[in-house]
């Protein structure tokens, strides 16, 4: 399989993730979309590391995974707090910053 196939897969996963972030009403769904986008980036990093024979891509991937975990932990915690306060996690109802 060529590098292009991996990149295409990563682009697709990224697009799906972006679509999820933009269209999901549920805050959990938005978080899932973000996860997909991050993992699309991971695919890219791994693919380039494999085809260019450069281990630095793998190292970056490990960092990204670790940070992703932290991000999900913080994100879910925020979502739970929002739920406790507003009794909802619908993104449409969260517009406190409206100008």
């Amino acid at each position: 399989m060529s590098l292009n196939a991996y990149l295409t897969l990563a682009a697709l996963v990224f697009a799906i993730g972006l679509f999820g972030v933009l269209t999901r009403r549920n805050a959990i769904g938005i978080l899932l979309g973000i996860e997909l986008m991050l993992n699309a980036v991971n695919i890219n990093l791994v693919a380039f590391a494999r085809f260019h024979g450069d281990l630095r891509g793998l190292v970056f991937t490990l960092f990204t995974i670790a940070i992703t975990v932290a991000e999900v932990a913080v994100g879910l915690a925020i979502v739970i707090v929002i739920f406790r306060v507003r009794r909802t996690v619908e993104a449409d109802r969260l517009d406190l910053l409206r100008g």
Partner: protein
Amino acid sequence: MPTAVPHGVGLDPAATNMALLVVLLPFVAFVLLAVVAPLRRRGQAAGAVSIAAIAVAFLAALFSWFVWKGDAHVQTWAWIPADEGPTATVGVLLDPLSNAMLVLVTLVSLLVQIYSLAYLRDERAPSLGRYYTYQSLFAFSMLGLVLSPSFIQMFVFWELVGLCSYLLIGYWYERPSAARAAVKAFWITKLGDLGFVIGIVMLWTATGTFEFHALFALAQEHALAIEGLGTIMLLIYLGAVGKSAQFPLHVWLPDAMEGPAPVSALIHAATMVTAGVFMVTRAQPLFVLVPDVLVLMGWVGAFTALLAATLACVESDIKRVLAYSTVSQLGYMMAAVGAGAPDAGFLHLLTHGLFKALLFLGAGAVIHAVGTNDIFRMGGLFRTMPQTGVVFIVGTLALAGLPPLAGFFSKEAVLAGVWDSGMTWPFLMLALSVLLTAFYMFRVVFLTFFGRVPATGHPHEPSWTMRGPLWVLATLTVLVGIRLAAGSLRGRHGPGWLAPLSVAAALGGIALAWAMYQRGAVDPGRLAATFPLSVIDALARRRYGIDGLYAGLYRGFILAFSRLIGWIDRYLVDGVLNFVSALTLRGGDLLRRIQSGYAQDYVYGVAFGVLLLLVWAQWWAR
């Protein structure tokens, strides 16, 4: 550094230093009162400081009068230095003219300030302190004006006395009428001052000097044949017209009576209003070069004298009668200067300063006692206030021009001067004014002190603080008259029939007033209704429409102009600003909607932006 001594003038440091002392003492008092606020707020203490300063200044002036009466001394210092001699100088010029004025100004200032202690006793202490601060500033300014050796210094002090006049007319500034009168006095005299300053500057452009002595020397050498000297002197004369309340700029003086009576006595009778006469007397060597301006001065003076006399006949406010009388007497002085008899005009200035201050202070005592200015609501005051009555009658007789009081000789000198110059019509106007003067003054005397209507309130003789100055002035009026009768100071002798004529005119006026207001033999209303008098009466009661004309001009021009400026400010200047601010507001309101508050919308925006960047990078950036 003293500059070169002008040609033909002595320089005695003792004389000029004495004059400097006279002028600087009130200035020190003024600075003290203006800067040391606690002293000023003490009121009576501030008065004591001011009176002490002017008292010493008076003694110094008196000393200077006795020692240096006959000679002229001048000392100047460079004010605006330049390569070829200073452009302008300050200094003192002590000659018989300014010496006499020094004595008059300090004397009347001193008496008025003492009198004010009692007259303004009921004022709040800070207000009284403010009053004495202004009084000291006025004394300084007037003395500085009198001692000016140059036109430019005279102009500076000229404006300062105008400022003091404004401040003191508006002393009771809570009264709208007083505030209005102050502004009116300021603006109308400013109209004349405009001419004055333009004239001075034009004269300077032509000759390169402001100094009186340099200018007089030029005049003597016939080196002043400048193009347009007539215009220059006319403009300078205009300053005197405004300051000395000559027709048609006389309208401010009656209104100036809104100030306290002592202020009227000092500023609007004895000193400041005579500054115009003083100035034309001082600049006489220049005015004689332009006979046309002198003739105009004579005519305007005589006409002012007659016009103001008729106005005084229909006025019922005691102070306004005196104000019109002052305008009338200033007309006499100007007519004398115009007729080429400045010594007569100046003599009348000095005697008039004494007895008119006396009359104003007497009127102040009456007003203080009865609490009204209306002569028809006073009456029989001679019984309750005999001393005030006596001094007031002395002043009135002097003003009417009866011998042997001071006014007789000076007025006769003025009439003789005008007759000698061959100005028949001005002479007739002035002679008629003699009759009217006696009439309107005795109208006041009969109505106030002898009338049958009992006065309102509980009239009583004023305290000695007020009576003292009255007696001093009355005594001086008599003494100066006797001194003049002795003959040594009598400058001019008219034709033999002049003295009997003027006395007869004065007696006729007194008899008429007696018949109308004391005896009741002639009904004033009926007399005023007969044909030629009825027209004058109707016109005089409307003040010949001159006040109305000024008010109309003011409304017509100045208010219309203000409205125009107001419209431009409101709609053009403000319009641009309002448009810009409205644009910002509206733009902000529109842009506000972008901030929906939904995080997803922002992400959408970012994604769309990145996409656009990508497309741009792909197709256009190459």
